[in-house]
């Protein structure tokens, strides 16, 4: 029973990792853009929600109504004004710029919100859980898993069924050719970043409910997000969910053997997949 519990909790944890990774996966998939400030953007979303909870007294989950569009708009403008200048064949400038963003953002948040560890309480939802047999499943982890599936499913639908989505896929296949078809690459890139930022907002708000955060909590979120993206296959959204779940279950089983193995088990699975299948489990078809 303990093992089944470890696997179930691992799957739920995988949803969290997938949610953290979804924005990263999207930006990389569309424009081969590695965002090192991804974790800090998530924390910024959490602080945004905190501001709203403190000033308006909103329920944490309701803050998404404001945080999500604001982050998306911020993502669009940021891409148009700054990031579009560093998108290109060479991946290094984008890494350097977003690394700088990461440092700036952390210090801005420290200046504004101090180093206090914060958390948003969702009231009774925090500790709510329901039992299946002797398993106990928390409402918040389940909510996060559901959010991950919904977000990735929604994005997948968007890419498959809307005109903008198809243009984004085309951009992903060959960003330079689509200019010839009359599409504005800069606008499409900005749309992709806006979508990724909206996902980041969701991840940020849910993280704020799940655990404590402070201005320096971002970078630690990045590692597992990267691993989930790479296990699943670069640019594949469902792959990212699978990657997150594989990572979560590996950690859960590792921890059940010995808590010291928890993180190591995830890294080992990641390495094995890199060796056996370097393109990831579900790589996007090269066009």
């Amino acid at each position, binding site marked *: 029973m303990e093992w089944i519990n470890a696997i179930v909790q691992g799957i739920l944890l995988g949803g969290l990792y997938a949610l953290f990774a979804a924005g990263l996966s999207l930006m990389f998939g569309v424009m081969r853009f590695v965002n090192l400030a991804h974790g800090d953007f998530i924390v910024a979303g959490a602080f945004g929600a905190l501001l709203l909870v403190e000033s308006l007294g909103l329920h944490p989950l309701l803050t998404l109504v404001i945080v999500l569009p604001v982050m998306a708009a911020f993502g669009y403008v940021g891409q148009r004004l700054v990031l579009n200048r560093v998108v290109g064949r060479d991946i290094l400038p984008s890494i350097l710029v977003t690394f700088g963003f990461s440092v700036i953002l952390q210090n801005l948040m420290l200046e504004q919100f101090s*180093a206090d*560890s914060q958390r948003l*309480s969702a009231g009774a939802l925090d500790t709510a859980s329901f*039992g299946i047999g002797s398993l106990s499943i928390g409402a918040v982890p389940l909510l996060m898993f559901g959010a991950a599936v919904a977000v990735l499913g929604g994005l997948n639908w968007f890419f498959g069924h809307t005109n903008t989505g198809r243009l984004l896929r085309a951009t992903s296949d060959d960003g330079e050719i689509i200019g010839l078809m009359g599409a504005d690459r800069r606008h499409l890139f900005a749309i992709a970043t806006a979508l990724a930022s909206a996902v980041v907002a969701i991840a940020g708000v849910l993280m704020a409910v799940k655990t*404590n*955060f402070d201005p320096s909590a971002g970078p630690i979120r990045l590692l597992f997000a990267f691993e989930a993206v790479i296990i699943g296959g670069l640019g594949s959204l469902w792959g990212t969910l699978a990657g997150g779940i594989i990572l979560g279950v590996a950690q859960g089983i590792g*921890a059940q053997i010995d808590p010291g193995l928890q993180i190591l088990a995830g890294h080992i699975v990641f390495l094995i997949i890199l060796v056996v299948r370097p393109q990831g489990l579900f790589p996007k078809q090269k066009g």
Partner: protein
Amino acid sequence: MTSKTTLSRRQFGTGVAALGAASTLPMPVLAQSQTIKIGFVTPQTGPLAVFAESDAFVLDQFRTQLAGGLEINGQTYNVEIIVKDSQSNSNRAATVAQELMFDDEVHLITATSTPDTTNPVADQAELNEVPCLTNDTPWQPHFFGRQGDPAKGFDWTFHFFWGLEDVISTFTGIWNQTETNKVVGALWPNDPDGNAWGSPDVGFPPVLEAQGYTLVDPGRYQVMSDDFSAQISAFKAAGVEILTGVVPPPDFATFWLQAAQQGFEPKVVTFGKALEFPQVIGSLGDRGEGLSTEVWWSPGHPYSSGFTGQSSAELAAAYEAATGNPWTMPLAFKHSLFEVAIDALKRSADPMDPASIRDALRATDYQSVVGPVNFMTGPVPNISKTPLVGGQWHIEDGKPVLEIVENGDHPAIAKTADVTLIGG
């Protein structure tokens, strides 16, 4: 930029002292030409920044009081405190310590808050023969972490705080007051603190065994974990009623919520590190009720500042009035750091001479706001121990309040309440 005339001054400084004393009284301007520089390394940014929140208040307090200079042996000196941010990084702490010593040429260097700050700064000071005063790191990681030899000690570096033995004694003191099945679950991470607390030689395990407790230790985990299901199921299976550990605040929050979601309800929860700050307890909401921790200082401590004359309660009240934030334990330790430094400077034969400051530090016998500081009577040379008691948080009107519930080692610090069981 500043003209370096200190050497020539020092040579005939003592002779001039008497003359200087006479002239300072009517005309202090003349004697203020000499400035004592104190370097201060502190983690203002990064994961340890919560320790540095009271820095600005304390520095302001001391700068205001010292604005008129400090009189030493009848001569008035300017005192300048130069602050450097360690960015919560031990390499950075060593670098800024070097900057303070070589570029700013400080006469005395100070540092606080965790081994990541105090150890590299003290190492640099020892190497470069600059007097150094530190606190807010348990003394074993500071002393033995720097390969200190209990027979010899150090030449230039002095440190005051409590030690691991005090935490163990305080925690078991809290637990001994309660009616439980004496099964203790431990959440010790794989970091210097977790390994020391869980050590079968010097940590909790031998003491717990001697006192009849059963220890459930699932093993060292990696900090900043997102999932504690394995530990929770191990604790549930063993019927753990007392829970302890030393974890960062996010880990505690994750664990404590998961524990509730998975139906694990211990009666006593006593943690180091995570539960020391009211902001963290406040963030837990009602789930913060009844949690306990070690207390290094509180407004109820019967000690006063030898520098400002403020009692512990007055210091806390002044901080709350000035900043609007609730008092935190590092506040008093920052204050005491400068108190002890100023005291040593006052007693030094020549505050421009490093050896003279060092000798004055070594001879410290001082009543500070965190208790008596004396580097001659510590467990090992260069170390002075400050008192540690146990506290329990209660949520009153939505605000966390810390009550002192265990004072077995230091009866002078009054208990303000008895231990209560969580949920009972």
